[in-house]
């Protein structure tokens, strides 16, 4: 399964794949930011691969000067019982990436969560609002430069 997957992707998206790595039989592909929707669409629609389930979308803050953020997509193929992980690097200056809600509608809430926690903007998302924090909250709590106990006064309590 692994070889077939990598062959197919190499045939179709040779320029989109930045790197392939494997750790304990888990395959991770780093994809170019602009091509993520096409790669996802191909992985879903290909008869043989059929990655029909998007298991999770999450973010990560590597706290580096360039390519600070990552968005990570965990895919699962129910037909082949096979998992892969896709990664996209995102720069702090331009925190935009295409939404994959058009491929898997379940990405809707998960992308909202990544937006809420890291401030990454998903272009083409139908309803990009905060999902956990209050609407008027101004910070992104899972960024590494956000203090653990929060910023005083940023979240209001009811009057006593």
């Amino acid at each position, binding site marked *: 399964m692994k070889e077939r997957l990598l062959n197919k992707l190499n045939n179709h998206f040779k320029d989109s794949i930045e790197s392939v790595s494997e750790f304990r039989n888990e395959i991770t592909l780093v994809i170019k930011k602009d091509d993520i929707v096409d790669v996802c669409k191909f992985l879903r629609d290909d008869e043989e691969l059929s990655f029909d389930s998007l298991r999770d979308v999450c973010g990560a803050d590597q706290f580096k000067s360039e390519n600070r953020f990552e968005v990570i997509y965990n895919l699962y193929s129910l037909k082949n019982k096979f998992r892969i992980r896709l990664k996209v690097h995102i720069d702090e200056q331009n925190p935009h990436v295409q939404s994959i809600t058009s491929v898997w509608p379940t990405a809707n809430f998960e992308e909202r969560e990544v937006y809420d926690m890291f401030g990454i903007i998903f272009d083409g998302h139908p309803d990009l609002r905060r999902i*956990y*924090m*209050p609407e008027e909250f101004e910070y992104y*709590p899972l960024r590494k430069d*956000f*203090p*653990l*106990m*929060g*910023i005083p006064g940023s*979240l*209001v*309590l*009811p*009057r*006593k």
Partner: protein
Amino acid sequence: MGIIKTNEAFITTRLDQIIAWARKNSLWPMPMGISCCAIEMMSFAGPRFDCARFGSEAFRFSPRQSDLMIVAGTVTYKMSHVVRKIYDQMPDPKWVIAMGACTSTGGMYRSYSVVQGIDLFIPVDVYVAGCPPRPDNLINGLIQIQKKIARGEKPGQSNKVFIPENSFIHERKTA
């Protein structure tokens, strides 16, 4: 001074005392079950621990009909407005038990999103320790509220009660 006539005799008492007696034996809790403490709160209501023995079996899911709020769980900043709104809807006199570590102090959630103790926004009468507290410890909290009512204390006053973990077991050993 009120006089209650019975068939053979009569009892004299003070009106406020008999009202307090009635109140303390029919505390209707508002179950503010937010997280895992709520499971122990259900056990406290169930047949094994049976808070019906203390007149509190009628859990009211409407704040209008309850006079004791058991806040059982981690209160986040977002939830704090809901807790306060429900507290405001309860009729006076109203009492509050902060059940468990998270509710009383924020507990292990020392983080930006969790209120570090619900006494930051509502007055609390009894704090029950534990993570989660055993149901018998919550019964002890209920008894402390009943004692407060019997003494004629007003809710939300300074005389807070702190119940340590396994308070009944300690009392039994020292007795």
